[in-house]
C-alpha cells in the first residue's frame, strides 16, 4: 500500500531537545530559559500570542537563529553550531516559499539534488511525494498556476521528499481560507501519522492547536508557561494566561477560607483541587460550557443575562453578577429555546470544574 512505500520501516524517528535556550535581540529578551523536548513522532504545537517568541524558537531549531545560550539537539546530534543546510530539516512557511522560477517537480527535486540524488531515482521520489500530497500529474506546472492550497501541498512535498529528521511549520495554513485550512489540517495530520515525523507546528490559532497536536506548549513573553497534552492543558490550566489562551474561561477572585474560596460578596465556592494557604488570595477558572442553569449544585451564583449570541449549535450568554463580575455561559442548543436578555438566572457548577490558577 501507499503508506508502506512512503513510510518505510526505517522511518526517521527523531527526538528533538532544547536545553536552557535564551535569545535576545539587542537588549530585548525574546526567549528566556526554554527547556523542552519533542518526542519521536510527536506533533507539538507552539501556541502563543503575537510576539511571544514562537517563530524565534522554531527558527532556533531550524538554525536560522543562533541562541545566545543553551543547546539544541536533533536525534543524537548536538546541532547548536550546525548551519541550516546541514541539519536535514523539512520546513514550511506561511508564504509557501516555492521557487517561482521552477516547475513543481523541480521544486520538489531541489532538496534531492542537494543530496546528490538525480535522474530516475529522483523522479521516482518526486512522484511519490506528489502522490502523498495528492498532486500527481502537477509536476510540470509552475507555482503561479496553482491555488494557495495546492502550493502549500507542493511545499509540504518538497519538505517531505528529503526524509527530514524533523518537520518545522510556521503558521503554514494561516494564509488559507477556513474551509481549505480545515482540509489541509486533516491532510497534514494524515501525512504526519504516515511518515511518523517529529513535527513542530507554530500557530496562534488555539483551535488549530487543539485539532492537530498531541502536545501543546503555550508561550507567553518568551517563556513556556505550560506544556502537555491538549486535554490536560484544557482541563487543568495552571495559569490564568493558559486558561484564557486555550479556550474561554470565567475567573472568580477571592481568598482561601476553610478549604474553599470566599468571593468578595461573601459567596463561598467549593473546589475539588488543592488550594494555597488559608487566607491567601486565589483566582478560580471555570470553563463557560461547564456551568449550567440550575438551582441545585455545589456552587451557585445568580447573574443577569446581558447579551445573547446565537451561534447555531451553541448559545453564548454574556452575564453580569450583582457586584459587576462578567461571566460567560455556553449552552448546547438542544431544543431551540433561548433565554431572554435581562432575565436573572441561577448558575451552578461542580467543585471539579473550579480550577485554582496562578495569575
Amino acid at each position, binding site marked *: 500500500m501507499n503508506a508502506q512505500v512512503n513510510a518505510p520501516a526505517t522511518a526517521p524517528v527523531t527526538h528533538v531537545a532544547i536545553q536552557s535556550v535564551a535569545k535576545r535581540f539587542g537588549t530585548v529578551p525574546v526567549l528566556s530559559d526554554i527547556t523542552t523536548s519533542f518526542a519521536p513522532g510527536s506533533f507539538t504545537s507552539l501556541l502563543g500570542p503575537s510576539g511571544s517568541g514562537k517563530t524565534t524558537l522554531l527558527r532556533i531549531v*531550524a538554525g*536560522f537563529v543562533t541562541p545566545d545560550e543553551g543547546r539544541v539537539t536533533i536525534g543524537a546530534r548536538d546541532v547548536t553550531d550546525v548551519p*541550516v*543546510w*546541514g*541539519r*536535514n*530539516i*523539512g*520546513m514550511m*512557511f*506561511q*508564504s*509557501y*516559499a*516555492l*521557487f*517561482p*522560477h*521552477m516547475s513543481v517537480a523541480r521544486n520538489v527535486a*531541489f*532538496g534531492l539534488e*542537494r*543530496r546528490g540524488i538525480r535522474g530516475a531515482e529522483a523522479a521516482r521520489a518526486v512522484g511519490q511525494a506528489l502522490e502523498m500530497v495528492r498532486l500527481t500529474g502537477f509536476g510540470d506546472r*509552475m507555482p503561479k498556476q496553482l491555488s494557495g492550497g495546492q502550493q502549500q501541498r507542493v*511545499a509540504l512535498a*518538497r*519538505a517531505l521528499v*528529503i526524509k527530514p529528521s524533523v518537520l*518545522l511549520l510556521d503558521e503554514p495554513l494561516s494564509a488559507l481560507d477556513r474551509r481549505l485550512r480545515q482540509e489541509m489540517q486533516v491532510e497534514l495530520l494524515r501525512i504526519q501519522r504516515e511518515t511518523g515525523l517529529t513535527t513542530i507546528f507554530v500557530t496562534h490559532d488555539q483551535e488549530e492547536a487543539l485539532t492537530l497536536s498531541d502536545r501543546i506548549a503555550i508561550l507567553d513573553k518568551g517563556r513556556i508557561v505550560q506544556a502537555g497534552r491538549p486535554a490536560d492543558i484544557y482541563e487543568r490550566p495552571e495559569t490564568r494566561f493558559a486558561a484564557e489562551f486555550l479556550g474561554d474561561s470565567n475567573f472568580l477572585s477571592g481568598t482561601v477560607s476553610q478549604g474553599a474560596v470566599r468571593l468578595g460578596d461573601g459567596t463561598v465556592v467549593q473546589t475539588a483541587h488543592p488550594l494555597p494557604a488559608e487566607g491567601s488570595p486565589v483566582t478560580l477558572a471555570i470553563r463557560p460550557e461547564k456551568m449550567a442553569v440550575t438551582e441545585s449544585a455545589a456552587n451557585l451564583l445568580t447573574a443577569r443575562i446581558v447579551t445573547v449570541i446565537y451561534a447555531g449549535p451553541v448559545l453564548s450568554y454574556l452575564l453580569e453578577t450583582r457586584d459587576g463580575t462578567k461571566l460567560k455561559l455556553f449552552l448546547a442548543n438542544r431544543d431551540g429555546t433561548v433565554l431572554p436578555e435581562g432575565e436573572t438566572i441561577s448558575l451552578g457548577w461542580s467543585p471539579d470544574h473550579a480550577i485554582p490558577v496562578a495569575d
Partner: protein
Amino acid sequence: MALRGPVGPRRLPDWMATTALLLPAYAWLTLAVFLPLLTMFVFSFLNKTPMGQAPVEFTLRHYRAFIDQPYLLGVAWNTLMMGVWTTLICAVLGFLAALALVRCSFGRSREMLLVLILLPFWTNGLVRVFSWTMVLRENGFLDSLWHLVGDGSVGFLYSRPAIILGLVHGYLPYMILTCYIALVTIDDAVIEAAQSLGARWWTVLGSILIPLALPGLISGAVLTFVPVIGSFMEPRILGGPVGMTLGTVIEDQFTQAFNWPLGASLSFTLLAVVLAIFATFSGVLRRGTAGAS
C-alpha cells in the same frame, strides 16, 4: 438590456477612452522624438549638410561607409567589445552591490544606503571623467599610491581599460538600481527554504538569486550597453589616441568634419545593429525571464 445593472453616467466606448488617454503621450513622443529623428533620417540620405545655399541631392553613399572605409569595421568591433566588457563588469559589480544592500540591511537604513551608494555617481559627467585622468595619468594619484611600494608608473590613462573604467563608473548606478529592484522583491522565505533543503550559499546564488534577478540584470544590461556603444566622452578623454569608437567618429562628423549626413547614417547603422542584437537575443531573454517575473 434587461440584465444590465444600475445605469451609471454614460460611458464612452472603451476604444475612445483609450485613444483619448494615449493621445497626449503619443503626440509628445512624435514631437520630441520622432520628428527630430526623422529629420536626421532624411539628412542621412543627403550628399551634404543642408545649411548653405548650395543645392543638395539625395544619395545612399553614406550607408556604404563601412564598405568604402573598412577601418570603420575595426572601430565598430572595438566599440562592441567596449560595450560588452563594460556591461559585463557593471553586471557583476552591480549585482553584488545590490545583493549586499538587500541582504545586509533593513527598512529605512537600506533606502538611505542605496541613496548614499548612488550619490557619488550623480556628479557631472565631465567632472567625473576628468577626475579619472587625474588619477590615472603618469605621476597621478594612482602612481603616488604605487610609489609607496614600488617604482615606475602603473597609470594606464589613454588605454582601453581606462575607457572601460570610466564607463563602468558612469553606468554602474543603473545596474545597481535594476538589480536592487529585482532582488528586493525576492521573499526571504524562498532563500530560507532553499537553505533548509540543504543549499549552501553558492547554490542559493546560482539557482535562486541570479535566476530570480534575471529581469533586473537584463534591463540593467540594456540600459548600460546601448548608451555605452554610442558614448564619445569617455573614449575621447580617457582613451586619447586609442579611444576611437563609433561614438567619437559620429561626434567628429557633427562637430569637426561638419558632415552631418555621414554622422546621421552611422548613427542609424548603429541603431540597426543594436536592434538586430536585441532581436537575436530577445527569444533567449524572454525564456530567461518568463518564470521569474
